[in-house]
C-alpha cells in the first residue's frame, strides 16, 4: 500500500487540499490577532470559490479566477468590517448571517447560470523548478506545484516576519489583547481591524477560488463544506505562529485527500467515513491540545472609543 504512487498522490493531495486551509487559516490568524473572530470565514471562502470559478470559466484564465475569488472574499469581508468593526454589531451573529447569505446567493446564482450545462475547467499547469523537479519521488512531491502553492509558502514566511519583526505586528497584537492601550498610544484600532478583516477576506476568497479552480475544476453549492471552520480551528491552535498553520493545513489536507489516494491503490472506503476524517482529527487535536489554545483577550469584543 505504501507504494510510490500512493505516497505521491497522498502528498500532492495533501498540498492541494491543504492550500485553501493554509490561506484562510493565515487570514483568520491575522484577524484573530487583531481581535476579530471571523465566523464568516466559511462564507468568504464559498464566495471566493463561486467567483473564482465563474471568472476562470468566462475568461479561460485561472489567474483571473484567483483574482476574482480574492475580490469576492474581500467584498464579503467588507460587510463584516462595516457591521462588526465599524458599527460594533455582534461578531458571531453577523458571521452566521454572512455564511447563510453567501450559501443562499451562490447556490441561487449557480442554479441560474449552470443548471442546464455543467462546465468544467481544464487542469492547471504546475510550476516546476527546473532540474530539481526531475529527482525521482522527491522531485514531483516538492518541486512541481501550482503557482498559488508557492504564494502560500511565501505568505507564511511573510506573516512570521510581520508578527515577530515589525511594529505593525506589535500593534496588531495590542489591538487584539488590549485595544484601549493601543488607542491611548495614538494607534487607530478600528482602522487596523478593518484592514486585517479585509486581508482575511481576500486570503479566504483566494483559498476558496483555489478549491474550485485548481482542485475541483467545478463549482458545487456549499462546496466549502466546513473548510472555513477548520481554518478557524487551525488559527486557534497555532496561536501566533504561521508555521503551525502551515503544518496543520498540511495535516488536515492529508486527511481530506486520503480518499483519492486510497482509491488510486484500489482501497474503497465509504465517502461518509472520509468526510468525517478531518473533523474527527480536529476534535482529537482539540481534546489533546485544547488547553493550549489561548486566544487574544479582547477576541470577539468590539472596540468602541470612549465606551466605559
Amino acid at each position, binding site marked *: 500500500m505504501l507504494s510510490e504512487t500512493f505516497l505521491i498522490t497522498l502528498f500532492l493531495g495533501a498540498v492541494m487540499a491543504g492550500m485553501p486551509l493554509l490561506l484562510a487559516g493565515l487570514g483568520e490568524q491575522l484577524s484573530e490577532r487583531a481581535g476579530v473572530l471571523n465566523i464568516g470565514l466559511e462564507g468568504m471562502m464559498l464566495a471566493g470559490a463561486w467567483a473564482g470559478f465563474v471568472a476562470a470559466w468566462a475568461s479561460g484564465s485561472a489567474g483571473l479566477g484567483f483574482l476574482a475569488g480574492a475580490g469576492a472574499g474581500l467584498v464579503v469581508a467588507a460587510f463584516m468590517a462595516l457591521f462588526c468593526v465599524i458599527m460594533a454589531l455582534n461578531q458571531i451573529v453577523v458571521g452566521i448571517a454572512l455564511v447563510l*447569505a453567501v450559501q*443562499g446567493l451562490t447556490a441561487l446564482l449557480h442554479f441560474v447560470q449552470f443548471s442546464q450545462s455543467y462546465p468544467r475547467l481544464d487542469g492547471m499547469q504546475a510550476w516546476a523548478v527546473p532540474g530539481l523537479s526531475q529527482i525521482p519521488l522527491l522531485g514531483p512531491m516538492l518541486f512541481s506545484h501550482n503557482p498559488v502553492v508557492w504564494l502560500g509558502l511565501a505568505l507564511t514566511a511573510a506573516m512570521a516576519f510581520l508578527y515577530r519583526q515589525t511594529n505593525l505586528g506589535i500593534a496588531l497584537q495590542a489591538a487584539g489583547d488590549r485595544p484601549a492601550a493601543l488607542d491611548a498610544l495614538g494607534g487607530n484600532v478600528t482602522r487596523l481591524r478593518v484592514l486585517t478583516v479585509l486581508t482575511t477576506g481576500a486570503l479566504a476568497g483566494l483559498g476558496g477560488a483555489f478549491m474550485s479552480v485548481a482542485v475541483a475544476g467545478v463549482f458545487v453549492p456549499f462546496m466549502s463544506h*466546513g473548510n472555513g*471552520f477548520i481554518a478557524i480551528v487551525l488559527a486557534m491552535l497555532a496561536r501566533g505562529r504561521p508555521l503551525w498553520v502551515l503544518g496543520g493545513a498540511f495535516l488536515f489536507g492529508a486527511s481530506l485527500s486520503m480518499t483519492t489516494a486510497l482509491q488510486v491503490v484500489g482501497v474503497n472506503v*465509504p465517502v461518509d467515513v472520509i468526510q468525517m476524517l478531518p473533523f*474527527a482529527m480536529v476534535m482529537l487535536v*482539540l481534546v489533546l491540545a*485544547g488547553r493550549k489554545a489561548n486566544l487574544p483577550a479582547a477576541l470577539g469584543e468590539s472596540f468602541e472609543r470612549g465606551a466605559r
Partner: protein
Amino acid sequence: MSERFRTGAGRELAIQALFLIGPLLAVLILGGLILLALGANPFSYYAFVVERGMLRPSGLEATLTRMGPLLLIASGLIIAFRAGVWNLGGDGQFLLAAVMAAALAPLLHQAGWPVWLLLMAGLLTGAITGAAWAVLPALLRARQGLNEIITTLMMSFLGVSLANLLVKLAFLDPTTTTPQTRTLPVEARLPRLFDTTISSGLLIGLVVVILVHLMMTRTAFGLRLRVVGANPRAALHAGLAVPALTIAVFALSAGLVGLAGAVDVLGIQGNIRADWNPAYSLSVVPLVFLARLNGYGTIVYVFLFSALSIGAESAARRLGVPGYFSLVIVALMLITFALSDHFQKRRQRLSQI
C-alpha cells in the same frame, strides 16, 4: 406643554414603528431585487409564498406541522444562548437523533409495542442521542474553557456524516432498493390534530418553548443560568457551580434539539433517506436572535419562517426559484434587524446626553 408632549409621543411611536417595519421592508425590497436578477417577478413570488404558506389550508397545515421540530430546536437554542453557550452544532444533534429514533421505532412496532409506549421510547431516544452528541463540547468547555462555537460545529459535521453512514450501512431497510431506514406505519406515528394533517408535534413544540421561556425567566434555575451567561466570573464569585451548570445547559439544549429530530421522524417523515439533511438548526439561530431569546416572540418568527420555507418549496417547483432563496431572506433579516437595533441603541444614547 401638554400639546408638545403629545406630538412628541406621537413622533416617538412613529419612530418605533419605523424601527420595526423598516427592516422588514428593506428585506422585502432587497429580496425583490434578487428575484428580479433571477428573472422572477417579486410581487407574484411573494404573493405565491404567502398564499401557499399561510392562506391555502393544505399549505397552512404543512406550515404548522413544520413548526413542531423548529420550535423544539428554538427552545434548545434559547436555553443555550441565554446561558452564554453557543450551541451551533444543532444540525448534527438533530440528524443523529432523528436517525436513532427512525431506527428504533419501526422495530418496536414490529415487536408489538403499544403505540404510545413506542412513541415515548422514540422521543426519549432522540433526546438522549442529541444530548450525547454534545457531551464532548460540554466537557471541553466546562473543564478546559475551550470555545464551544468551534467544537459544536465540528461535532455537527461529524454527526451529519455519521448519521448518513448509519442509514447506509446499519439501519438500511432490506425490503426496498432505496437507501433509507424502515418506514414507521402512519398509524404508529404521532397522532394528527383533529381532522387536519397537522402533526401533534406542533403541540409538543409549543408547550416546550413556553415551558423553556418560563423556566429561563421565572425560576431560580433559569436565573442561575442567565447569571452564568451574563458574567461567568461573577457567577463563580456568587458561589454557583459554573462547570456543572454549563454541562446541564449543553445537555438540555442538545437534548431538545435531539427531541426535535425525533418529533420530525415520528410525526412527519416516518423514515430517513440517505443523505437527507434539512439543516434546520443554522436557520433557526437567526430566528431566536430576532426574537431576542424571548419564547413568545420565537413562536411568531418560527411561524413566519416555516410559512416562508413551505411557500418557497412550492415556489421552487412552480416558479423555478430554488428554495435557497429562503436562506438569503433569513440572512438579510438578521442583518437588517441587527442594524435597526444598532441605530435604536445609538439614538437612545444620544437622547440621554
